[in-house]
């Protein structure tokens, strides 16, 4: 299925390509099978009356999601979004223009749910949901990383991500799921993480990590506690942090920061996953199920703070959705959420991002750095789409842009931003988000990376940038894969906390025992 394709040549300036119809036509990513579909409540294969099921599902979704209803009705086809999608810019396929992608859905909506579409389909571009259309849905709604860049530019805020999620939900409902997402969700909802890493394996990995750090630092015992009841902080981080490169160096950074602060913290083997692919497939139920594991872990471990590691959509789900889904935050009324409210320390934002935590420690002078340790680097920061456009940090306007940069600048002497039109709220996606981080989608991943790669090339040339920092597991994996295809060093992508890790001065006396006693006293 993964066909041969040419690696695009990076342009000097990012230009809007001429349309090449059908260039990204195809069968889409590998399809899910019964064994992955059924546990999520989806049919194992394409159902017989799929058209009816799909139309009913569209009807249901538009009555449950105001976004879907309003966005389907409001588009005027002004064209403002047509040159905003990285997948369009990189692939030239017109169906990758946000409005055209939405129109795959909107044309069916019009045909079945609007007066004009029922009686004058040709006039308003209403279309039937036939086999060809369904194929197009599967293919092109899996060429959207739900990055929401189009939504920033739309005069009505129409967010293709919402339509993409709805479309994937419809596809799942008729039995056509994506293997990558649904297989991973099965692992996350049964074992506790996307990798299917069971508790003993996780424990071993963490022990190895402790040894490695002790060796590297010359005897500093940075601990990676697992399932430690009564710890103050529960860290929920993407499972990629446990073993993938360069993610693990970020995890080393978190551990060092916790160590220097002297706070007690823990990971959970039951909820060992920050990523929540339920968002990618658009399923509220699945997303909630995954979120509830984290609430359960927080309750079982009796922590007073829930913290999230470097993961883009995990932070979106945590920051924007957890309070809604599971009551991690303030104001939920069900029994478990109430119990959690009582347990959580409301002097801190709940949940809190690891960057907010480190930033706060830096502000309060609790961490010391040898910035020269990063002097071999000239760093730029890639704003990950979900963090940039769907969350905040620090509770201040634009905090999600300010805090990570502050942290980087506190630990590095050389920092440069990429071109303004490619960062912050208008950042370009890495090309691998939204459930696309799978090898069977390599062509669209490489093409979708073009706008980011082009901006990076400019700062590499002009400012000698040799390090790309990010706070998203998907971005890190994606960049490791695509950087070399554009003649960059694949190791130039790092975690922000890797930079922290390299510069932090580990001068804290070993006082582990103090922490444990303080926790034990507060446990009553």
């Amino acid at each position: 299925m993964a066909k041969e394709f040419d690696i695009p040549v990076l342009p000097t300036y990012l230009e809007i390509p001429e349309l090449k119809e059908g260039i990204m036509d195809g069968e889409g990513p590998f399809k899910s099978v019964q064994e992955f579909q059924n546990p999520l409540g989806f049919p194992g294969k394409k159902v017989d009356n799929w058209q009816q099921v799909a139309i009913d599902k569209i009807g249901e979704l538009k009555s449950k999601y105001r976004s879907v209803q309003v966005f389907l009705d409001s588009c005027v086809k002004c064209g403002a979004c047509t040159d905003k999608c990285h997948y369009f810019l990189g692939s030239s396929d017109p169906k990758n223009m946000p409005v055209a992608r939405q129109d795959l859905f909107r044309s069916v909506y019009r045909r079945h749910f609007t007066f004009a579409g029922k009686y004058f389909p040709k006039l308003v571009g209403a279309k039937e949901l036939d086999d060809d259309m369904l194929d197009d849905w599967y293919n092109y709604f899996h060429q959207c990383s739900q990055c929401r860049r189009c939504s920033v530019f739309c005069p009505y805020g129409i967010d293709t991500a919402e339509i993409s999620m709805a479309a994937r939900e419809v596809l799942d409902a008729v039995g056509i799921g994506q293997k990558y997402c649904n297989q991973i969700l099965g692992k996350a909802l049964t074992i506790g993480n996307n990798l299917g890493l069971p508790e003993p394996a996780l424990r071993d990995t963490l022990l190895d990590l402790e040894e490695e750090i002790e060796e590297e630092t010359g005897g500093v015992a940075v601990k990676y506690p697992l399932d430690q009841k009564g710890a103050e902080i529960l860290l929920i981080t993407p499972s990629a942090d446990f073993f993938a490169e360069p993610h693990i160096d970020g995890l080393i950074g978190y551990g060092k920061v916790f160590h220097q602060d002297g706070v007690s913290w823990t990971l959970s083997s039951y909820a060992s996953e920050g990523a929540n692919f339920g968002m990618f497939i658009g399923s509220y139920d699945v997303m909630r199920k995954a979120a509830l594991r984290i609430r359960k872990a927080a309750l079982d471990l009796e922590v007073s703070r829930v913290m999230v590691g470097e993961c883009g959509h995990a932070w979106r789900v945590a920051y924007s959705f957890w309070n809604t889904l599971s009551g991690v935050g303030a104001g939920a009324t069900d029994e478990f959420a109430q119990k959690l409210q009582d347990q959580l320390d409301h002097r801190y934002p709940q949940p809190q991002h690891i960057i907010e935590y480190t930033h706060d420690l830096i502000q309060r002078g609790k961490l010391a750095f040898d910035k020269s340790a990063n002097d071999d680097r000239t760093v730029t920061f890639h704003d990950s789409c979900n963090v940039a456009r769907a969350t905040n940090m620090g509770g201040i306007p634009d905090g999600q842009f300010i805090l990570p940069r502050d942290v980087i600048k506190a630990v590095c002497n050389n920092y440069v931003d990429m071109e303004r039109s490619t960062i912050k709220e208008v950042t370009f996606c890495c090309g691998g988000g939204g459930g696309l981080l799978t090898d069977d989608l390599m062509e669209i991943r490489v093409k979708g990376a073009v706008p980011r790669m082009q901006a990076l090339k400019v700062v590499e040339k002009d400012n000698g940038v040799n390090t790309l920092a990010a706070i998203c597991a998907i971005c890190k994996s994606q960049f490791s894969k695509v950087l070399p295809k554009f003649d960059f060093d694949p190791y130039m992508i790092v975690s922000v906390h890797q930079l922290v890790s390299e510069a932090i001065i580990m001068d804290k006396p070993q006082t582990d025992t103090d922490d444990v006693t303080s926790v034990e006293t507060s446990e009553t």
Partner: protein
Amino acid sequence: MFLNFLTIEFESNMSVISIFFTALFYISLIAFLIGMARKIYQFWITPAPLKIPTAPTPLTQTGVVMRMMREVVLFESLFKSNKWIWLFGWLFHIGLLLVLIRHIRYFWLGDLPSIFLLTQPFKYAAFAMVIGLVGLMLRRIFVERIRYISAPSDYLMLIMLLIIGISGAVMTFTSNHTDIIMVKEFASGLVSFNWANLPTEVHFLVHIFLVFVLMAIFPISKLLHVPGIFFSPTRNQVDDARSKRHISPWALKQEQEHATRLEQTLGKDE
């Protein structure tokens, strides 16, 4: 009037054309009002289950109001996106608004207050409106990307608005004036149910015919972007998910009944 022999009894001096347009006005108005009420009700009752504001997000309700004002008055996001679409789009909308304000005089019952003198220059807004529409039309035809996404109705909408704008401008700025007193009697008569004949110059009839049609199709067309913007969750939500719980009625019900579908396969919550 040569059509007087066709007039109906209860309005003995009304022509068939006048009756037709009077009826069309009320039919269109009712279609507009009922359609819009239904649509706005639908937007209103459809919950937004999740917090999805798009950056740069306002952290307070006041911030949301300011953002919405900037969107509605200045087309802020469109400005960020594309200066040409913004220029033409904004010219058209501001032109239309000013022209509509100036039209109030025709529906005003009795003598016009002197405040209407101030709206006199608004007639020139017709040019802004037409220039904007021509710009949008040219882009729709000549920019490949926009041509690709355009359906016949997208062109038709622009053509209708163009004809409305041009026919109005022709009556105002050329010697093809229409009988303005009659227009006022007709229009204010529609408001006071004191129906009167309308002038029968072709450009006037075309003008109001298309206006009435546009009014009727408003709730079943892309003109729904007008109420839509106010209901857009990415634009009207406060970014305060951590401190304030946001939950939809259906999700709350599901939560209270522990009723997610996944419980059959993956066990109950907690």
